[in-house]
Structures are given as structure tokens and as C-alpha cells.
């Protein structure tokens, strides 16, 4: 099959970017979207004097959270009723021969472009630094079965701990909010008995870090939920607000 890609090209963060158009033939419906970009890059090297298109990838099985493309306006390109997909798990079956496909980086003030489709998401790591953990030093843990966790709590913790930190929630949000990302971590740790001691401090510090990094507030459109490749529910944002309120009231 043939596709025409309109790809965002930007040399580095301090230059402006623009779309370049490339038509590539000989693609196959079984290819993953990133494999199609591999083919595009071979094509660019063979037929032009351009550099290949820079884009992030690693595991290519939907778990590392590295890939970060906005495809036809949708982070990861899944779209309606097709969440649960990372860019690397989107296949060309989703397109028709001759389609035009627009590919952009995740766009947000807090995710500056490094080159072409590659962005800097280190803001997420800095948020985790401020409280996305339980303070336990190696060796000081008691026996694992000494603390019981109900199946329900373990399931809820898992559902939110499944976040891969890709940033699609931010890219989809008109306010560039990372509340789903923060909400997922806060909910994960607040669901477990081990997370109780630091519960209040954690949510306050993480929300503060979130705001400081320049992410916006949530206005409840749930665009984040619709594109989340791990189907993390917008309930975790409600949970985040609840935890925040609890922490601030408790402080009074």
C-alpha cells in the first residue's frame, strides 16, 4: 500500500519547524506504524539528501512508554473506541491505500521538542521525584505477607500502577494537564496500606511539582482517558482531587 506522510521536521528546540511531505510505496497492512516510519527513513536516505526522521521508540510492544506520536491529530493514533494502543502497536491495517497521514510530536509547553518528533518528558520524572514513592530503604522491609492487601485494593492499585508514563494524556489535553499521570500514581499508592504514612505529603508535593512544571489544570473533558494506552480511568483525577482536599483539610 501507499501512504503520504506529512511529518513535522524541526532541527532542534530553538528553531521553528514545518511539515514535510513524503510519499512511500510498498507498505504492508501488517506493519506497525513505527515500522512504516523505518521504511520511510530508508526511503529518505535512498532518495533524498535529508537526514532521517527522528522519533522515539524502544520496546515496540506497548509497555516502555517511549513512543510518542500524534497521528492524524490523535496521540498514539488510536482514536474513537480504539484506546489501549501505543504508537508502536498501531498497525497500518487502520489506514487505507492512498491515505494521507499527519505525524506530529506530543505538543505541550512542558514537553519541549528535541528534534522532529522527539520531545523531552523529563518533567514526569521530576514529579515522581517529589513523592511518587514509598520511603523504604533496602533491607528494612518486613515479611511480605505481614501486611494483608485485599484483592480489591490490589486490583485498584494495579489498574493505576499500569501507567507507562508516555504523556499521551498531556498531549491530548487542551490545557496540557498531567492530572491523569499524577492521579494514577497518587491513587496507586493511596490504595495500599504501605502508602498511608506519606499519603498527605505525597499528594501535596506531587501536585505542587505538577504545577511548577507548567502543566495546566483539568477541565474534565476526559480527552486523556480516551487516548490512554493503558485505559487508566479519569476517576483517578477525581481521586487525586479528593486526596488533595483530604490532605489540605487535614493540615488545617
Amino acid at each position, binding site marked *: 500500500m501507499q501512504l503520504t506522510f506529512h511529518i513535522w521536521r524541526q532541527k532542534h528546540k530553538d528553531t521553528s519547524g514545518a511539515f514535510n511531505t513524503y510519499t512511500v510505496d510498498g507498505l504492508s497492512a501488517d506493519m506497525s506504524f513505527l515500522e512504516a516510519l523505518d521504511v520511510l527513513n530508508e526511503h529518505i536516505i535512498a532518495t533524498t539528501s535529508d537526514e532521517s526522521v527522528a522519533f522515539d*521508540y524502544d520496546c515496540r510492544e506497548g509497555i516502555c512508554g517511549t513512543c510518542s506520536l500524534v497521528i492524524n491529530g490523535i496521540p498514539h493514533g488510536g482514536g474513537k473506541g480504539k484506546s489501549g494502543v501505543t504508537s508502536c502497536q498501531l498497525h497500518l491495517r487502520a489506514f487505507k491505500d492512498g491515505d494521507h497521514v499527519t505525524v506530529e510530536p506530543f505538543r505541550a509547553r512542558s514537553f519541549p521538542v528535541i528534534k522532529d518528533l522527539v520531545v523531552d518528558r523529563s518533567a514526569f520524572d521530576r514529579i515522581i521525584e517529589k513523592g511518587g514513592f514509598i520511603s523504604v530503604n533496602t533491607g528494612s522491609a518486613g515479611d511480605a505477607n505481614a501486611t*494483608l492487601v485485599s484483592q480489591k485494593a490490589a486490583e485498584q492499585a*494495579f489498574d493505576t500502577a499500569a501507567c507507562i508514563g508516555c504523556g499521551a494524556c498531556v498531549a491530548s489535553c487542551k490545557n496540557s494537564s498531567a492530572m491523569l499521570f499524577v492521579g494514577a500514581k497518587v491513587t496507586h499508592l493511596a490504595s495500599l496500606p504501605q502508602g498511608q504514612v506519606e499519603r498527605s505529603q505525597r499528594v501535596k508535593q506531587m501536585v505542587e511539582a505538577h504545577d511548577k512544571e507548567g502543566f495546566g489544570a483539568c477541565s474534565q473533558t476526559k480527552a486523556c482517558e480516551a487516548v490512554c494506552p493503558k485505559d487508566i480511568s479519569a476517576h483517578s483525577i477525581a481521586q487525586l482531587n479528593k486526596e488533595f482536599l483530604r490532605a489540605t483539610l487535614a493540615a488545617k
Partner: protein
Amino acid sequence: MKFDACIPQGDLSCKWKTHKNTMKLVAPANRAKFKVIVVGTGLAGASCAATLAELGYQVEAFCFQDSPRRAHSIAAQGGINAAKNYSGDGDSIHRLFYDTIKGGDFRSREANVYRLAEVSVNIIDQAVAQGVPFARDYGGYLDNRSFGGTQVSRTFYARGQTGQQLLLGAYSSLQRQIGLKRIKMYPREELLDLVVVDGEVKGIITRSLIHGKISRFSAHVVVLATGGYGNVFYLSTNALGSNVTATYRAYCKGAGFANPCFTQIHPTCIPVKGDYQSKLTLMSESLRNDGRVWVPKHPTTRDPSSISEDERDYYLERIYPSFGNLVPRDIASRKAKEMCDEGRGVGPSGLGVYLDFSHAMKRLGRKAMADRYGNLFDMYHQITAEDPYTTPMRIYPAVHYTMGGLWVDYNLMSNIKGLFVAGEANFSDHGANRLGASALMQGLADGYFILPYTLANYLASEQLQLLPLDDVAFEQTEEAVKGRLKSLLAIQGKSTPQHFHRRLGKIMWDKCGMSRNGEGLKEALAKIDELEEEFWQNVCVRGDSASFNQSLESAGRVADFLDFAKLMCVDALKREESCGGHFRKEHQSPQGEAQRDDKDFSHVSVWQYPKQDQESSQKGPSSAYAQEHREALIFDNVKPSTRSYS
């Protein structure tokens, strides 16, 4: 050079305890004087860096990914073993030790494996305390499942994403220490060489993948936790960034490389679809519990539903009536390849066998099957657009893990003083074949519970000086690194690094993959030489080294794979026996099973980089001329036996 494992004296079960009691310590107030570099932030690296920082050492951590959370440990599915005996089914440290050493086909060290089994129990405690959401039973206690080849339930799991959850646990500890300013983290920063002076590691040279800046870092100790080299085959279940550069560079600086030919090929992966394919995806081996493996008796391209029962060959059930579809990984993989070599493979490429669930569907019904395997079936469906509930899955073996790695002693230190190696990057615990759910266990054992002790012992025992960054050794190493980048950019050829990588992978898969023979390995060595020649004349790397340049990154990694591949072939050639994942066609029983030779090969092969000869080029001397040393394996506590499954 002598490769002495430095195994403590005494009874097997007391070695680690005694060693811990006699090793030297660094007092809390002195720890901040020591600088430690940790390269790689997977399970081994992140757990090690976090623990050392908690203890008070100055830590600098490096990863090539954009965040430490993305290291490839994240992709592990099944679970993590621990000898907790929570199931009360008779598990013990000794049993876990025995299963692991037997699973490795008696090619690993007793003392290391015993220690691994010993500390396995602490890992679960630590992970639970960090908030890792392991599966629970109705009473709120931790749940276990059983895993390939063992007779007890000792595998802890978090759905099919155990690696992700354990890594995020270690990452959270790492981030906590970064926030406390006890770790300086360098993401998107790749190690390109090590600085070694008089057999002692002094620091590393790195390149920023964002702006290309080359930097020098000095330290008292360097830990490499940089993973395995499965991507030498191009197609594997590894992440695309996984590479051999760090361990290969250490080897070029004098570190011994142990058993490089020991690779694990996993039998149940989604088959290759086309030349463009970049990655193979694993389907958990648990599927073999309810799936039956077959190929047509005679080559055909017909739809599987039109192939009647008596036209099918359920070959595993036929050849191994007692174990059937549940034979170990290495055997299941080899037999699938044989079927395809006979021309009976299925699917468009002919490289696939059926894993058929229709009998289980009839027996259990769709709902029960969905409960057991739903997420795997969905994943398969997403990738292949075929529905495994109604059509048999097509599977084929793929490279999954490398048991070989840098040689380390009992303290996990290589023969370069101060250079420690952890996780998949070292060779120490899995022998010639790794058991399922043991990789996570080993990575975390090394990082949380072994290195923090042995590293302190080293720091306290030696008079160590930091090498100033303007020392000539740093200068020279940096010049060499820059020279190499410059030569890659100067070639201006026609083919991308991926093009060469793909061709290398094909040679390795054909000649040094699931089964090997002397003639094929020699052929591979000649072909790799040619390919390497061509690479250095015709690789195309555009852009420059002072900016984000993925093609330059990849060219450097492929260049290292090209030479390293020869070392694997040389090792495979020299090991004239079959054991675990290493199957030499010349060494098989009349029934076609692996034939080990304990008389001549009960040892670790440790390879050292050949000395520079006159014909040196930018790519250095060829590993085809590496020098072999041997560390004898001594079994005082278990008796090596022959595995039989028919």
C-alpha cells in the same frame, strides 16, 4: 591471566553468611567520600543505584533511554521466583537452587546460584514494601503460580506485567534518591568507553544523545548493568535500543567475556511477517498448558481449518509422549525449527508452527479460556489481525535472553578492578539456559542485596584515588571515542546501519542460532568479516555528532555487534558439546537430544580481547582471534545429570 571466582570457604549454605560477616565495611561517615557510577537503570542498575545512595555513597547513574523507567526490564511478563514457600508445597532455598542449576544444564557456579536462591526471599519483601501490586488471594495474602519445569508454586506475579511493576518499584526508589540529591541522573546519555589504568577502572566517557556532547566522569567504582546482547540477532524480543556496546567496550579494555554463545531462544513468539520487521513479540509460555503444537504431515499452504486430524503431526506429543507440549524451552524451539526446515512450516513465510486451542476451547469453553489467556489473545489479535479463539496461533522461536556476559567473580567484580557487573550483563547465574521467572530475581538480587555488600568490601580494602578528569588516560580515551564517531560520519556510504544490522542478524540466526555446527560457524565467521568490511566502507550516517542523531547512535552499536558476533561464533565453535541453549549438531544422542560433555567442557569459557596487531584499523583487532581462558566448574553439592523428557 587467572580467572579466580574467589568463592568463600565453608559449607554451601553458609558461604554468603560467612562472607557477609567477614567482608570489610565502609563507615557511614566515610561513604560520601566514594563516587560510584552505575550504567543502566533496569532492575539491576536502578536497585543498585538507589540502595547505594540510601547508604550514603555519591552515585551517578546513566541510561540511554529518555527516562530510567523505560529500561527493558519493563517488558518482562510472567513473574519472579522466590523460595518463600508461602504455598506450603515443600519449596525451599535448596530446591530453588537445585532447579536453577539443573535448568542451566550444570554450567553455572554452585555458590552464586545458592546465594541467588537465598536472597530471593528478601526481594519480595522489599518490592511489597515499595507498593508493588502483586496478585493477592481472597484473604489478602500473596498469590503464587507455577512456572515452567518446576514442581512447586513459587512465582510471584502482577498480572502479565511483573517486570513493569518491579521496575517501577526500583525506579521509584531511584527517583526518591534523585530528589534527595544523592543521585545525579543522566538520562539520554550513552556510555561509549571506559577509562582503565593498570587494570583498574577509573571512569567512563559518555555522549549526550540530545546534543552530542562528549563528557568524562571519574569514579572509584563503576557498575555496568547494561543488559544482554540478544539484538546481535537483529530480531529478538529485546527493546530496539538494547545493545552490547558497554560490555563490549569493557571487553576491549581487558574484561573477560564469559560464555558468549549461551543464548536463550524462546519457543512461543509471533512469527516474522516481512523484511521490514523490527521486533518480535513474545507470547507467554503459559499458553503451552492448553495449546497443542502441530504442523501438517506434508507441506501445504491450505487453511488450517481444512487440514483434518489425520493430516496433522502433533510432533511434540509424538516425540516426547511423557512431557508432550510442555518440554523445556530449548527443546520446543529446536523442534519447531526442524519442522520448518523440513518444509512443513506454516504461514506466509513458512517459518511458523500452529499452537492450537480448539481442543481446550471445546473442553473449557470460551469464557474460561478468556479468563486464562484473554490479554495474550487480544495482543495476538492486535498484531496479527487473526483471532486465536477460532484460528490456531502461529508461533515461532525468537531470541529472548543471553546467559553469557562479562565474567565476574563471586563478588560480581570483573577481572578489571573496580568494574562490577550486574543483571543480564554478567554471566554468573543461569549457566547454559535460564529458567522462566529467574531474570527478574537475579537483576534485583544483584542490585539490592549483593553489590551493596561486595562493593563496600572493595572500597574499604583498596587505597583508591579518583583520576583527575584532565589525566592523559581520559584524554586518550576521549580522543579514541571522538575518532570513532568521526570515522563513522566520514564514510558517507549508501546503506543505513539497520541494513547491516539486519544482514548480521540473518547470518547469526542461520549459523549461530538454535542449532549450530562447526562448518556453519566457520562460514559465519567469514561472512561477518565480509559484512564488517562492507560496513566500514558503505554505511551511511547523515547529520553530525554534535546533535541528536539516531543514525549515529545506531551505527556505533551495530559496529560493536559486528565484532562481538564473531566472538559468539568462536565460542560456539570451541564448545564441542551441546548444553542448554547451545546445541551443536555434531553432539547429539541418537534420539536427537543435546549431549553434554562434562569431562571436557565443565567449565566457563572466558575470552579476552586479542592484543593489537600490526594491521590495526579504526575497528581494532578482530575478536575472531580472542584468547580463551577457563574457569573450572566444581560440583560438590549436586551431581550433574542428563535431562530426559521422552
